[in-house]
């Protein structure tokens, strides 16, 4: 195929990636609006969001097709992948500690179970240290 045909292919692939990324960003917004509690909203804000942003950046890279800009886009994508889990962890931790997690909506709640067990163990230790 000629170079012109490859250009067309890259543009079409870029358009598809852009559409997918925009749809995922839209899904993140709808999820943040409609989900019932903080953890579900945070899920909508991190997972579809990062994939959508990566798709948009891939589409932009396919469209720009020049070295320096593409490396900067890779930097943005890597940075987003590094920071989104950190931000989600901080939000989830603060939400759990300030009691904004609805426990009736959770299927598995390992943190509460482990914390109860740890507190029981600590109380047993105190009792054992005080008794003899």
């Amino acid at each position: 195929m000629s170079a012109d045909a490859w250009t067309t292919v890259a543009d079409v692939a870029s358009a598809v990636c852009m559409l997918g990324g925009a749809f995922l960003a839209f899904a993140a917004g709808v999820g943040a609006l409609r989900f019932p509690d903080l953890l579900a909203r945070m899920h909508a804000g991190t997972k579809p969001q990062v994939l959508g942003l990566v798709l948009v950046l891939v589409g932009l890279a396919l469209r720009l097709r020049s070295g320096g800009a593409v490396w900067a886009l890779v930097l943005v994508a890597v940075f987003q992948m590094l920071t989104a889990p950190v931000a989600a962890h901080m939000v989830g931790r603060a939400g759990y500690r300030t009691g904004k997690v609805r426990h009736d909506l959770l299927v598995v709640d390992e943190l509460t179970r482990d914390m109860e067990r740890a507190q029981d163990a600590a109380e047993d230790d105190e009792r054992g240290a005080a008794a003899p």
Partner: protein
Amino acid sequence: MTVVVVVCGVLLTLGAACAVVRAERGPSMLDRTVALDIVVTTMIAAVALYAAVQRRTDVVPVLVVLSLVGFVGSVTISRFAAVEPEGEGRVRTREEVAAEEAARLRAEDEAIARRLAGDDDADDEPEPYDTLGSMAPHPGGVAGPEEAGAGPAPVGPGQDVAGDGRAGGTDER
């Protein structure tokens, strides 16, 4: 290409609008943080869309800066997210604000009047803490030591004082 751009723009706009509605409605500070994070990322996508349409490489640094700023904002807010009192996340009406202001002014007037009266009394016997006593300290600012630990079951917003953030959890971070 034009159709693709229009569809992408509409999707991004709708997503950002939904996130802004959540930021306005969100019951807690963390909900707003998450929603504003979504708005920032949607903005990054919009700038990327613009760069793709115009084939401009000079807006790519803007993407880097925006992703940095969004991360710093959300982490900072959730790091210092202490317990906000019940009803704090609500925008008050004009009448409520006026009533609170009137109550505050009245309390200030009473404090000043009490202090003046106290000064009159204090002529013959000095009371060193009288002026401090009129500035009533707020009760309940610091939780007791038995509440400072990380309890297993958070007891709803507004009661779990010092379970997180400033007093209790600093040693575990």
